[in-house]
C-alpha cells in the first residue's frame, strides 16, 4: 500500500503486541500489514490461443495482406502478433464481399434467422469470455478486472440484446417500415476494442446490413478473434469482414463509394474529417466522438459514494474513455473534504500489471497517447493549475501514467478545455447550481455528465439542463446494451444502444 494511506491514521501506529504476526522480522513486501502491495495474482493465460500472425477476414476467408504491422503489449512493450495492413485493393475486396453477402443472403434472410446467428455468437463469446478478456488486456493494457467484469459481459449482452431485435423491427418505428441500408463501414477505437466492435456490429447485423469493420491499429487482436468466432458461428461469408490497418485503411473504407453507411467512434478531429468526406454523397453516418464530461458534486451529495464515482469516472480504463468524468465541479462547502478523500482513495488504487487481478489502473495504450497526456499535463502545470499525483511506483517497462488531479483550475486552462484521454482530472469549485450548469455546458462537447445530490428534484433539474447525451445521477460510467449512448454537439451524431440505437442502421419507409 502506498504511503499516503497512512494519512488516514494521522500518525497513529499499530501498536498492539498481540497483533504481530508470527513471521517476525524480514517480512515480505507482500505481507498483508507491512507490505507495500498484494502478492501478484496474475490471471492465467495458458488457455489463450494467440497466433503470431493474423490475416484479414474477407468474404469468409483469411486473406494475407502483404504489408504487416505489429501490435504490442503496452504494459511490456513486447510484440504480441503481427497483423495485415489493408491497402485500397483489400478495402475494395472487403466492401465487395460485404455487398455480395448483403444482396445474396443477409438482407433477404428472415429477421428471425439473422437473430439466431447473433444469439449464437453471443453464446460463443460467453463461452470464451475469459480468453477474450485476457487478450483484450494484453493488447490494450486495461486491467483484467475491467475486461473480465465489464467489457466482456457487455459484449455478450450487446449481441444478445440486438439479436432479439432482428425480427421485431416492425415494432420499433411506429408508422414506418424499417429496411436495411446495405454495406456498413465501421471504424472503431482502441479504448474498448471488442466492446466497440459489439456496439457497432450487433445493431448493424440485426437490422440486416453487412459490415466491414476496421479495428484500431494498436488493438486489432480481439476483433480478429471475434472474426474467428463469427466464422465458427457459421455466418454466411462476407456478412462480417474485418480488415486491419492504420488511419489510411480507415479512410479508404470511409470514403469507399460502395459503402452505404459509416459508423465511427474516435476523436472529434477525425469525426469532422469524415463528416466532410461524406458531404454530398448521400451516404449516412453516425459519429461517437470526444468528450469532456462535467461531474458535479453538490454539498448534499452522498460524499463517500461521490468520491467513488469520481474515481470511477476518471480512472476507469486509465481515463481512456470518451465519456470520462474529466472535469470535476465541487460545491465549495465540501471541496476540501472531497479533495482530501479523493487523494486518500487514489493512493489505494493498485497500478501495474494489467493481467493482475488486483490491478485498478493499467497501462496507457500507446507511446503516442502517453506523450499526449504528458504534454497536456505539463501545460496544465505551466498554466498555473496545481498538480497532485498519487504515490504509486510505475513499472519500468511499458507505458504508464500516475493518477493525476489538478486543483485551482480555471475554465480557460487547456486541461479543462481539451480532451486528455488519460487519468487526469481537472477540479473546479462552484457556489450556485447556475454556475455549475453554466460551466459544465461551456464546452464544445456534450457526451456525458454526472450529478451528485441527495435531492431528487435537484437531480431532474440539473440533468435536464446539462447538454449531454448521457447523464449519470449519483453514479458514473455505467453502460448497458438497453441504454442509448451518444453525444450532443461536437461529441457526435446518433445513438448506440437501446431502441434508439437501431435508427442509424435502417432506412424508414
Amino acid at each position, binding site marked *: 500500500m502506498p504511503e499516503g494511506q497512512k494519512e488516514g491514521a494521522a500518525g497513529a501506529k499499530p501498536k498492539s503486541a498481540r497483533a504481530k504476526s508470527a513471521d517476525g522480522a524480514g517480512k515480505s513486501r507482500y505481507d498483508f500489514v507491512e507490505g507495500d502491495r498484494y502478492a501478484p495474482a496474475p490471471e492465467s493465460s495458458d488457455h489463450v490461443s494467440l497466433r503470431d500472425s493474423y490475416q484479414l477476414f474477407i468474404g469468409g476467408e483469411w486473406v494475407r495482406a502483404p504489408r504487416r504491422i505489429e501490435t504490442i503489449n503496452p504494459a511490456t512493450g513486447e510484440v504480441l502478433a503481427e497483423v495485415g495492413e489493408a491497402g485500397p485493393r483489400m478495402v475494395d475486396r472487403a466492401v465487395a464481399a460485404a455487398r455480395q453477402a448483403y444482396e445474396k443472403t443477409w438482407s433477404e434472410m428472415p429477421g428471425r434467422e439473422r437473430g439466431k446467428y447473433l444469439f449464437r455468437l453471443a453464446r460463443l463469446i460467453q463461452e470464451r469470455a475469459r480468453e477474450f478478456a485476457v487478450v483484450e488486456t494484453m493488447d490494450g493494457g486495461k486491467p483484467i478486472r475491467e475486461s473480465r467484469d465489464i467489457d466482456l459481459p457487455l459484449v455478450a*449482452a450487446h449481441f444478445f440484446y440486438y439479436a432479439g431485435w432482428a425480427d421485431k423491427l416492425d415494432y420499433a418505428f*411506429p*408508422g*414506418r417500415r424499417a429496411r436495411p441500408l446495405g454495406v456498413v463501414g465501421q471504424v472503431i477505437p482502441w479504448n474498448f476494442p471488442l466492446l466497440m466492435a459489439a456496439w457497432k456490429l450487433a445493431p448493424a447485423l440485426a437490422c440486416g446490413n453487412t459490415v466491414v469493420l476496421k479495428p484500431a491499429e494498436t488493438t486489432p487482436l480481439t476483433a480478429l478473434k471475434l472474426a474467428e468466432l463469427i466464422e465458427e458461428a457459421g455466418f454466411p461469408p462476407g456478412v462480417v469482414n474485418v480488415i486491419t490497418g492504420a488511419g489510411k485503411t480507415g479512410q479508404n473504407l470511409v470514403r469507399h463509394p460502395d459503402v452505404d453507411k459509416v459508423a465511427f467512434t474516435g476523436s*472529434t478531429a477525425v*469525426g*469532422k*474529417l469524415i*463528416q*466532410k468526406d*461524406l*458531404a*454530398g454523397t448521400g451516404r449516412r453516418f453516425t*459519429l461517437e*466522438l470526444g468528450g469532456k464530461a462535467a461531474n458535479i458534486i453538490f454539498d448534499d451529495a452522498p460524499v463517500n459514494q461521490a468520491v467513488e464515482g469520481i474515481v470511477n469516472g476518471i480512472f476507469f480504463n486509465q481515463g481512456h474513455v470518451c465519456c470520462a468524468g474529466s472535469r470535476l465541479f465541487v460545491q465549495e462547502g465540501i471541496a476540501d473534504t472531497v479533495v482530501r478523500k479523493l487523494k486518500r482513495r487514489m493512493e489505494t488504487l493498485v497500478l501495474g500489471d494489467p493481467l493482475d487481478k488486483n490491478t485498478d489502473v493499467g497501462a496507457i495504450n500507446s507511446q503516442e497517447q502517453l506523450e499526449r497526456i504528458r504534454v497536456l499535463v505539463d501545460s496544465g502545470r505551466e498554466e498555473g493549475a496545481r498538480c497532485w499525483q498519487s504515490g504509486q511506483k510505475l513499472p519500468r517497462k511499458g507505458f504508464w501514467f500516475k493518477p493525476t488531479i489538478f486543483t485551482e483550475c480555471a475554465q480557460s486552462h487547456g486541461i479543462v478545455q481539451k480532451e486528455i484521454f488519460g487519468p487526469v482530472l481537472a477540479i473546479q469549485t462552484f457556489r450556485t447550481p447556475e454556475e455549475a450548469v453554466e460551466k459544465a455546458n461551456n464546452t*464544445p462537447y456534450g457526451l456525458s455528465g454526472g450529478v451528485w445530490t441527495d435531492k431528487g428534484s435537484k*437531480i431532474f433539474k440539473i*440533468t*435536464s439542463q446539462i*447538454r*449531454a*447525451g*448521457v*447523464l*449519470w*445521477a*449519483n*453514479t458514473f460510467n*455505467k453502460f*448497458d446494451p*438497453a*441504454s*442509448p*449512448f*451518444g453525444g*450532443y*454537439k*461536437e*461529441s*457526435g*451524431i446518433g*445513438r448506440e444502444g*437501446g*431502441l*434508439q440505437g437501431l435508427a442509424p442502421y435502417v432506412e*424508414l419507409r
Partner: protein
Amino acid sequence: MSTKKRLAVSKTYKLYLGGKFPRTESGRYYELKGRKDTLLANVSRASRKDFRNAVVAARKAWSGWAATTACLRGQILYRVAEMLEGRAGQFEEELRAQGATPVAARKEVTASVDLFVHYAGWSDKYQSLFSSVNPVATPHFNFSMPESTGVVAAVAPEGSGLLGLSSVVAPILVGGNTSVILASHARPLCAITLAEVLNSSDVPGGTVNILTGLRDELLPQFAEHMDVNALLVCSDEAGETRLAQERAAENVKRVIPHADAPLAESPYHILDLQEIKTTWHPVGV
C-alpha cells in the same frame, strides 16, 4: 388591393428578427416582380450580419422556448393556425400575386393551417413516442427522452412559399428549438406575413427568425456558423447539399437534407431535430 377613391397602402416586406421587423442592416434589396412585370415588393436581401444577429436572437430565445411546457407550445402552435386562418385572404392574395392559381392558393393556405393544427397536437406526444424506459441489468432507473437540439438554421423549399415554409417551421418549433429560416427567394411574400402571424400568436420574439435573400450568399453562412446546432436544407441542387454538409462539419452540425418540396407531416421530422438524452439513477433506499 385598391379601391377607386383612395390610394392603397402597400406593405413593406422586411425581415423578422428577434421579434421585430427590421430592414436588412445592409440596406440591400431585390425586386420581386409579379405578372406583367409589376413590382410586388422590394424584398430585403439579408446579409451575413443579419444572419448573425438572427442566431444571437435565436440562441437567446432558446432556453425559454425549450423550457416552455409542451402543453403551452401546443396551444401556441394552435394559435398560429387560428391566426393563419384569419389571414387566409391575405395569404391567398400573396400566393396569387406570386403566380399561383386561386384554387392552388386556397389549397396551400388551408393545408398550411391544417399542418399547424397537426403539429400543435404533437407538442406533448412525440416525447412519449420517442422516449423509452430502458431495462438495464444494474439497480438503476434508466430512461431516454428527446430534447430540443437547440438553434436550427433552415433553408425553406424554394418552390412553395407558404406550405413549404410552414412544413419546416412547425416541426422545428414544436420540438422546442429556435430557428433562423431562409424563405423562398422567388416566393418570399408569405414568409413575412407568416412572421406577422407568429408574432401575434404568442411565439416569443427570437424563437423563429425569418430572412429573405439569396441562397448562394446565405447557405454557406448557415452551414458554417458555430452556434447553429442543426441545419435543415430543402434543395434539389446536389451542390447545395454538398456544400452545406461539408461546411457544417466544423462544429459537427446535424444536417438534414430534404427535397425542394413541402415536408409531409410526420413526427419523424420533429425527431430529426431532437437529441436523445439518457439518464441513469440508482434505485435504493
